């Protein structure tokens, strides 16, 4: 035998159900927020440290970060240069990253991440393999861009991701925007940089 339910019952039933579900989710979300934020901040510090070749775990990230990185107005400085944040959009959602530049605006380290690019295609920007391609490239007179069959001797060109054209375009746009925002930063920071000792040796190497 089947019970029948009136329309009023169905409306009230679904309304109550949804409100109860929303209440539970709100409580959990609010109570777990501090832990999640802590994880996200640790991850951001890990990413920044990675650009200067420091491998941090989630636990010692804060400590190493305090040791190596100084926060400036919208960017970061380390012993030997600056780290600029990158923010942009990929195909499905936000993409972001950090570029570490030395005094001659040469990339010494890069790291990228994304919210929801296609795994195996656009999602490849989060791999070390992709980030490695930026090392030695320059951000002085123009921004780095991604290109198909990139010319590896060109200091402003990096190989794009096959199958990830939209994401690659997003990375190019993100780099162009960061270049506009932070143009000339690495040479300015040289003057204010307190770590003269290492910057001298670095310049000699470049000569």
């Amino acid at each position, binding site marked *: 035998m089947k019970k029948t339910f009136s329309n009023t019952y169905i409306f009230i039933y679904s309304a109550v159900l949804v409100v109860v579900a929303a209440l539970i989710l709100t409580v959990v979300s609010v109570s*777990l927020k501090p*832990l*999640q934020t802590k994880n996200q901040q640790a*991850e951001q510090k890990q990413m920044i440290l990675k650009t200067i070749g420091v491998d941090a775990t989630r636990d010692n990230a804060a400590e190493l970060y305090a040791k190596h990185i100084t926060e400036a107005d919208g960017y970061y400085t380390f012993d030997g240069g600056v780290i600029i944040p990158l923010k942009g959009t990929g195909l499905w959602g936000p993409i972001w990253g950090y570029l570490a530049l030395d005094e001659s605006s040469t990339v010494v380290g890069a790291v990228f991440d994304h919210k929801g690019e296609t795994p195996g295609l656009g999602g490849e920007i989060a791999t070390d393999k992709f980030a490695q391609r930026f090392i030695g490239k320059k951000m002085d007179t123009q921004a780095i861009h991604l290109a198909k069959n990139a010319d590896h001797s060109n200091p402003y060109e990096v190989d794009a991701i096959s199958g990830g054209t939209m994401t690659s375009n997003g990375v190019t746009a993100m780099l162009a925007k960061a270049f506009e925002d932070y143009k000339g930063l690495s040479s300015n920071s040289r003057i204010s940089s307190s770590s003269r000792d290492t910057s001298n040796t670095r310049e000699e190497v470049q000569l």
Partner: protein
Amino acid sequence: MKNFDLIKLPFSKNNPILVQVLGVCSCLAVTAQLKPAVVMALSVTVVVTLANLIVSLLRNTIPPRIRIIVQLVVVSTLVVLVDQVLKAYVYDVSKQLSVFVGLIITNCIVMGRLEAFAMVQKPWASFLDGLGNGLGYSVILIVLGFVRELFGSGTLWGYPVMEKLGLYSIGYENNGLMIMPPMALILVGLIIWAHRSKNKDLCEQ
């Protein structure tokens, strides 16, 4: 059916992946490494068990016309809870599983058990059925994750087994096909083959 059977049968005779052929999508997607496979297995087990219990408790109040929506609300609430907990306590794993946690909502095992079992059975039996099916799914996921990580990446839970055994120095190479989803399908096929030859009564005439 005896309560014990509810737990036991999904392991073999009524395995959700091998016999019901439910939840195959996620089983191909997350088993390239052992760790995400185990976390996914645990998450699905928690979700299907609790969803079965809750829907069974509500079963007499649920109007049949909106029962799928009600099931979906219960399942998605649980999945979002699991996602939030993973993000708070095992952040790396939750990043690795990314979209797949959300996709538990559409995991056929969950909806399948709710429709077929929890809507018409008592809470305790439904709870056991959910647990049994979740664990039956877990077993296959863990076996796949084990084999694929060991032969695909030469590691287990991130520990470099093959390197420690010194196999690379005598010319051993990882099998790249193992980390691709198609290989998981082939492995599932092989397991089903072995399973059916043991259980002839499952074979169709």
